[in-house]
């Protein structure tokens, strides 16, 4: 199988999983973040369920190469810098404001109506603004 077919299949499976798990429903996501209200644990099950196959997959990569050839991603860096922390905080604030993160924003596009579309366009604008922001954080902490 070539890499395009596998990417399409992975995307379809990812989209179906996001859809079936309820993660395209902002009420479930905001319910998980609302720890002082009526807490909804669904997201924890989604995250836990997703980590299990990936934990196995990472172990399987040892001493092997990807099906299409090339090499697996390098071992993760342990570098905790300002970009990681500031980026995660900005992302979390936006996530808690609407209840959508990038995957579900894409997966719900067909039924998210104008709200979904406005969110996606704003998200793309934010992504365009990221490289200069990264450079700014680098120079501020250098």
């Amino acid at each position, binding site marked *: 199988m070539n890499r395009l077919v596998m990417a399409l299949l992975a995307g379809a*499976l*990812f989209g179906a*999983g996001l859809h079936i798990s309820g993660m395209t429903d902002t009420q479930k996501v905001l319910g998980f973040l609302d720890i002082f209200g009526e807490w909804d644990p669904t997201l924890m099950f989604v995250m836990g369920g997703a980590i299990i196959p990936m934990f196995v997959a990472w172990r399987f990569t040892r001493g092997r190469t990807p099906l299409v050839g090339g090499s697996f991603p390098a071992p993760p860096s342990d570098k905790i810098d300002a970009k990681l922390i*500031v980026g995660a905080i900005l992302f979390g604030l936006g996530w808690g404001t609407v209840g959508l993160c990038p995957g579900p924003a894409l997966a719900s596009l067909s039924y998210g109506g104008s709200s979904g579309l406005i969110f996606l366009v704003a998200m793309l604008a934010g992504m365009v603004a990221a490289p200069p922001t990264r450079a700014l954080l680098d120079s501020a902490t250098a």
Partner: protein
Amino acid sequence: MPVDWIWGLAGGLMIGCAAALYLLGNGRIMGASGILGGLIDGSARGFVSERIAFLIGVIAMPAVLFALGDTVDTHATGSVPLLIVGGVLVGLGTRVGNGCTSGHGVCGISRLSLRGMVATGFYIGAGVLAVVALRGVL
């Protein structure tokens, strides 16, 4: 409701299998913000068609399920200012922090990446803060 957890777990396992397929097949980390963002800011370098194929799958599969009669609702706010602020922060934050729920969360935590775990702690904490703050205001 207990049934929500079961759907969550089933959907989560599918997400994990999708990430495993993308890793073992294509040798790439399945992070939604990275795959999309690399196309948007031009940092994708190669792999462009692979990213587009992935995104087509993500958007098309739920559309098919929806067309087959699955009743779903995102229940997203109709407030344009909130949608714009939330969207910009998510797009900016995931690309500055180099990952989102799928990249740092699913793919990072499963390989015991310190960066993935620290990022996940911070974005969940900030998300809780936003929910609590907005509930006080709105």
